[in-house]
């Protein structure tokens, strides 16, 4: 199949009760739009449109789906529903909220709350290697609250990575893109390969998918924290199994971050799933344990939390929540 790119719906397009404003992102499986509802409230709308199976040409609203791909297209739709189902059952400040689900243009759409901010990926790219420990602890502790909720519903995210972690303008993180949740459904359809991102997916994604569990998402959290320090994704887990070239965080950034944080990152990124933190709670506990006195020997700044913006923000926020 030749590579093809789907055309997004044009700005101003009236889609059900929403009006499209612009395209936010384009993936192999879907397009995400910024749109407004009848009250003018901004929403993000995700359109199911796998470009391997359906093509929308310039000027058309309905995609062309070759007859022989129709069963696979329908089957992929089922997976899109799985994402909707997963999100509809979750109601948590650190998880993107789904607002509506509808059919149109021979495909399906999921409407989500629109959050202002940027992805952690953008943040990392911009501040390459200059991310403070307090920031990492702040963001990931809160993000893990969301992930706990996911796991409490017996779901796995399975595609955690910095570009799926959204930072609101107030700094609080939101987990977005649950497209990989319950990927098992897709594993048998060659057209729609299980989704994971090299560098952030746990080794069991590649080898033994029966072993997928909360610890798999925890590997991804560890790899995302690692990426915050290194500025890019760590070596992919399947390659690590062959020839591990990842330098342990505890060695690579010794003296720049607290040993306890670095050890926690290494702990999450253990190749053996049984050696990682077995629950989000265990990891959260580790992230909450930060003895600032131990940092005296550290080269990095951020020693006085009151003198930086994040420290003040943090103090203000903890005052707000009363902790």
């Amino acid at each position, binding site marked *: 199949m030749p590579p093809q790119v789907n055309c997004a719906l044009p700005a101003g397009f009236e889609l059900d009760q929403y009006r499209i404003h612009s395209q936010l992102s384009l993936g192999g499986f879907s397009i995400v739009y910024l749109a407004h509802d009848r009250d003018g409230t901004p929403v993000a709308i995700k359109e199911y449109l796998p470009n391997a199976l359906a093509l929308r040409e310039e000027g058309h609203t309905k995609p062309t789906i070759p007859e022989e791909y129709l*069963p*696979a297209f*329908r*089957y992929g*739709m*089922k997976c899109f*529903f799985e994402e*909707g*189902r997963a999100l*509809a*059952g979750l*109601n948590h400040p650190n998880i993107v909220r*789904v*607002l*509506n*689900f*509808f*059919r149109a243009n021979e495909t*399906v759409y999921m409407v989500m709350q629109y959050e202002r901010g940027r992805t952690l990926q953008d943040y990392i790219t911009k501040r390459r290697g200059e991310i403070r420990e307090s920031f990492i602890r702040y963001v990931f502790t809160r993000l893990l609250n969301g992930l706990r909720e996911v796991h*409490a519903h*017996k779901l796995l995210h399975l595609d955690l990575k910095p570009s799926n972690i959204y930072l609101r303008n107030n700094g609080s993180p939101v987990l977005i893109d649950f497209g990989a949740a319950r990927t098992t459904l897709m*594993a*048998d*359809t060659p057209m729609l390969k299980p989704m994971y991102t090299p560098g952030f997916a746990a080794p069991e994604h590649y080898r033994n998918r029966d*072993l997928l*569990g*909360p610890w798999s998402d925890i590997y991804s959290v560890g790899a995302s924290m690692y990426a915050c320090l290194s500025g890019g994704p760590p070596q992919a887990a399947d390659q690590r199994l062959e020839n591990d070239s990842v330098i342990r965080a505890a060695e690579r950034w010794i003296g720049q971050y607290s040993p306890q944080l670095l050890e926690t990152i290494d702990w999450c990124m253990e190749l053996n799933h049984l050696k990682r933190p*077995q629950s989000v709670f265990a990891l959260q506990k580790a992230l909450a344990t930060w003895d600032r006195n131990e940092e005296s020997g550290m080269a990095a700044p951020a020693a006085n939390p009151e003198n930086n913006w994040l420290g003040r923000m943090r103090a203000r926020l903890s005052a707000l929540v009363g902790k």
Partner: protein
Amino acid sequence: MRFTIFQESRVGRRKSNQDRMAYSYSRDALLMVVADGMGGHLQGEVAAQIAVQYLVESFQREAKPRLNDPFLFLSRGLTNAHCAILDYADERDIEDGPRTTCVACVIQDSVAYWAHAGDSRLYVLRAGHVMAQTRDHSRVQRMIDRGLLDEDGAMTHPHRNRIYSCLGGPIAPQIEYSRKTPLLAGDTIFLCSDGVWGPLGNETLLKLFDDTQVMQAVPRVMDHAETAGGDTCDNLTMIALNWHDSYAEEPRGSVTTKTLPLDRHTTVLEGFGDRVPSREDWDESAIEAAISEINSAINKYSKGQ
């Protein structure tokens, strides 16, 4: 609706029976409930009685003859029963109040909906296979999920009775809901307390149920469980139902693919065989059903805010 239903409860070797069960039906809807009052807690049977009675009374009030929204019914019913048990304890100043597990199932339009809290179970059997089964809200189930324990280990684990969700406790119950499950003629659904599944284990329990005529199967399963339970046999309770209608007027051909069991034996073959049958299953009505299911889940939350 056409069905055969049978229920039985036995005290086992305990002093009192803290299990409660009930069923109720209108022309178009059916309710089945099993509740297992908690042993260590004062007056467990009161909690079980309140839960069952509350659900049955709400059913009789609302199913005239249909329930508007079976999931909403279950969610309100279980939550309110929880509150009613708390009120009971409050009024009498009981500090460590009575608690109960609860599993409840509604069938309407040949679709089953169920919800549970605790370790009383529900099974759906189709063509000799388990099509659906509730997962216990117990510590041992969590350990099994994490790969730290197998089923044999769970049967003898010292903490096998510890559950983390129930009605009447100080923490609000974690109620788990099923999917909408369309039924076919010949399907069997049964609900039971841990006194039934505990001593037998899943495998034996299902083997004993292979002749699914509920009138014969229930007493047979109970006899075996009681024997296996020995001198400390817990209360045993079971409601079972044979369903005789089929969901929707599917063309004959597609019905046969729907009866394909979705258990492990088929999944092992995934990737090798022809997956087209399961894709054809995914037709217009299935899409509509999925969308309305998702939207009702969304609404359930937004109303609560």
